[in-house]
């Protein structure tokens, strides 16, 4: 009997409305675990052969929402959303916090595999083994708050119908999209609660393309049994106690970053990355603290509760609610737009959340438009009368609405910074790519590499990542020390990296063995299993298509802006060293088993049992 897993996945074809259970063999689960790893495997098996022809926003794409064996047991809970990404055209494992994964597993499912496209707007409702595809017309076009309110109320009533004498029914978990997802923008998140988002990858748009507004899950069962309960509970308690002592992180979350990464490390996006330094006292964590109505907010099992609940109770932005904002949103919906006051940042985060935009991708495209406006490349007329001057909250709000609803200029900006730069460049007859700070179609996380001082991102962090600009999957060397192969572990297990700071790989592996009863060594993970997932992701990233394709090595480079020297601050004049970067990249390629052009070597693929990948890369002449 399988331990740590519910043992089956729910497969729903929205075109035919067919619903069935899908199982994976022990071998597949042992190799790919769950979450990002398993999503990659499913996508390769089902779409790999025709990958370059699959439109991420077409009915052929597959949306995966997967838990892992860690879900429900490891302190803090996430679920992993994946599919062919409309940003990178490869595979991105995008995680989001909340109780959704727990509800799924308690309902008897390890995940959802969603194919096809519904004829009309719909949402999926699951309660234990009961699965229904329901009409979403009352909430199609609605923003976050209204969507969630409708779904929670209606679902509770429906559960009460099934369990009439149960007593009070607790709300189910909901993943949903806002207008940005419905309108198939490439900058839309899959959202939980108000502001928990699986943003990287752009899977909100994938849901929209499937006419899928939301997924509601309720599980009445226990979390699936594990192999060695005593060991698992004991380890979980030890991990929790470790987290209880992370006092600074518990107190401030990532919300201290809005000042720190600007003032101390010069690695925060400021005005569309024209700078990475600022020292605005108004953006210190204590200034954000004034708006936190809950200083500790978290999700199922979390010992850290690093989130904070920010509410604007008075003033012209009264009514705005959002979590923290966390550092990424402080940066992308703050400093990157020239905003240095918490109140305005909280408000814009709220606007972005309500629209279902990814705070990073959406914020990046707003900053991109603002710089083009500043430079006179985009005019007031081009922008439908909007004048996005730095720090103009009203203008950014109006522009965000345009993006989410794909109206006017928003239709182009909704494509994200990379594609918008190409489209606008064509219209304006200019090369605008230097204003698009992205890696393989994914706007870069709010951690710059120019100063060299950021502790997340170094020179090849994004350039060599199989998830492009995703700062939670940054590439680094040596391969087996906290780089992308570790991210693959976190996203496949599926665990929250914020509740796993300082917990050694061996302890996580020990936990995994306790959950599943399956043996795993560190060496097996770093030499075999994780590289296999990495190579599948790399292969699909290089196959790309149909609308974007990345050239190995040439496109394995930093955004153009990162080669410009920092204009001011303690690291003024500093930028990346081209020679050192080239060396690091070559070193990374070699360590990963890729040739000097970044293409996986046939012998590496064979060693990992990926002969079919070799054949496919030969077909498209990537392997000569």
């Amino acid at each position, binding site marked *: 009997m399988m331990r740590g897993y519910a043992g089956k996945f729910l497969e729903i074809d929205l075109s035919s409305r067919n619903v069935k259970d899908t199982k994976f063999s022990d071998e597949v689960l042992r190799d790919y675990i769950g979450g990002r790893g398993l999503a990659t495997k499913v996508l390769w098996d089902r779409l790999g052969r025709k990958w370059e022809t699959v439109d991420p926003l077409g009915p052929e794409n597959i949306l995966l929402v997967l838990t892992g064996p860690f879900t429900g047991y490891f302190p803090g809970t996430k679920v992993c959303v994946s599919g062919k990404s409309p940003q990178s055209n490869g595979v991105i494992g995008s995680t989001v916090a909340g109780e959704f994964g727990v509800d799924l597993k*308690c309902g008897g499912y390890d995940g959802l595999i969603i194919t096809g496209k519904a004829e009309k707007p719909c949402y999926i409702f699951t309660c234990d083994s009961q699965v229904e595809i329901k009409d979403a017309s009352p909430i199609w076009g609605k923003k976050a708050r209204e969507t969630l309110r409708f779904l929670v109320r209606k679902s509770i009533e429906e559960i009460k119908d099934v369990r009439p004498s149960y007593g*009070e029914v607790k709300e189910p978990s909901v993943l949903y999209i806002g207008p940005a997802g419905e309108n198939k923008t490439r900058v839309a998140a899959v959202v939980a609660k108000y502001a928990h988002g699986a943003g990287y990858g752009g899977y909100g748009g994938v849901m929209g393309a499937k006419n899928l507004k939301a997924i509601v899950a309720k599980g009445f069962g226990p979390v699936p049994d594990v192999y060695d309960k005593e060991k698992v509970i004991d380890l979980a308690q030890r991990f929790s106690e470790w987290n209880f002592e992370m006092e600074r992180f518990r107190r401030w979350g990532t919300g201290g970053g809005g000042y720190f990464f600007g003032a101390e490390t010069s690695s925060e996006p400021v005005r569309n990355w024209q700078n990475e330094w600022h020292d605005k006292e108004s953006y210190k964590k204590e200034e954000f603290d004034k708006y936190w109505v809950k200083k500790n907010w978290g999700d199922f099992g979390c010992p850290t509760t690093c989130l904070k609940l920010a509410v604007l109770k008075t003033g012209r932005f009264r009514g705005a609610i959002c979590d923290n904002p966390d550092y990424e949103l402080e940066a992308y919906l703050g400093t990157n737009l020239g905003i240095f006051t918490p109140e305005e940042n909280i408000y814009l985060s709220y606007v972005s959340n309500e629209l279902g935009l990814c705070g990073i991708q959406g914020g990046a495209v707003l900053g991109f438009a603002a710089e083009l406006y500043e430079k006179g490349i985009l005019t007031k007329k081009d922008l439908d009368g909007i004048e996005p001057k730095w720090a103009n909250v009203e203008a950014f709000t109006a522009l965000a609405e345009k993006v989410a609803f794909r109206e006017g200029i928003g239709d182009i900006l909704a494509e994200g910074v990379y594609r918008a730069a190409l489209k606008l460049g064509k219209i304006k007859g200019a090369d605008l790519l230097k204003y698009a700070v992205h890696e393989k179609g994914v706007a870069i996380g709010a951690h710059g590499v120019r100063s060299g001082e950021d502790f997340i991102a170094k020179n090849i962090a994004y350039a060599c990542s199989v998830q492009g600009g995703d700062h939670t999957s940054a590439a680094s060397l040596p391969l087996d020390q906290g780089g992308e192969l570790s991210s693959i572990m976190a996203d496949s297990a599926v665990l929250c990296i914020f509740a796993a700071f300082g917990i050694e790989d061996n302890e996580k592996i020990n936990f995994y063995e306790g959950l599943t009863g399956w043996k795993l060594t560190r060496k097996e993970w770093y030499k075999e299993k994780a590289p296999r997932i990495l190579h599948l992701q790399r292969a699909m990233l290089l196959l790309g298509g149909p609308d974007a394709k990345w050239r190995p090595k040439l496109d394995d480079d930093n955004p153009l802006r990162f080669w410009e020297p920092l204009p001011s601050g303690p690291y003024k004049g500093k930028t990346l060293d081209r020679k050192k970067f080239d060396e690091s990249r070559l070193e990374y390629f070699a360590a990963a088993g890729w040739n000097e052009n970044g293409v996986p070597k046939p012998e590496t693929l064979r060693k990992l049992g990926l002969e079919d990948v070799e054949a496919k890369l030969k077909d498209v002449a990537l392997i000569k």
Partner: protein
Amino acid sequence: MKTNRNNQIWIKRNYENCSGCRRCEIACSLHHEGRIWPEASRIRIFMLIPGVEIPHLCFQCEDYPCVEACPARALSLNSKIGAINIDASKCTACGLCIEACSGNVPHLHPEGNYIVICDLCNGKPKCVKACQEGRWNTLMLIPRKKEVSYKTLAKKPQELTHEVAEQILGEETAKEVLG
């Protein structure tokens, strides 16, 4: 029903502090069911709107209307600590105790055909321990006092959500969120 309240205990809840971590549900279900089982937990966190998390568990009314209402005598008072004990073998799942409770606290076990209610873990509630060790201080163990009417605190999750939402979001915003 009169009882001597000496040595009896009560779980005080500071709703506005609840982080929503649900570690109380984990601790409770591990203790009572031997596994992590949120729906079988005797304390349940209701999150009818995100940010307003309501730990919902027995309020220990001074007149124990649930015990009075049970036609099968499945519910009894543990007068030593002031908690309800349930004899699951006698419970017929008629639901009368839920109706009798002004907070609608009792609920059916998700798989068995019987009611579950907090029994205060025989004096050492695991939920309180879980909440305290993380220093959230949402749940606090205090002596049960003669002069306090706990029944007046017993409210349904929806009512508590409205009250707490107004408190932490402000009246106007709460109204907008609750719709």
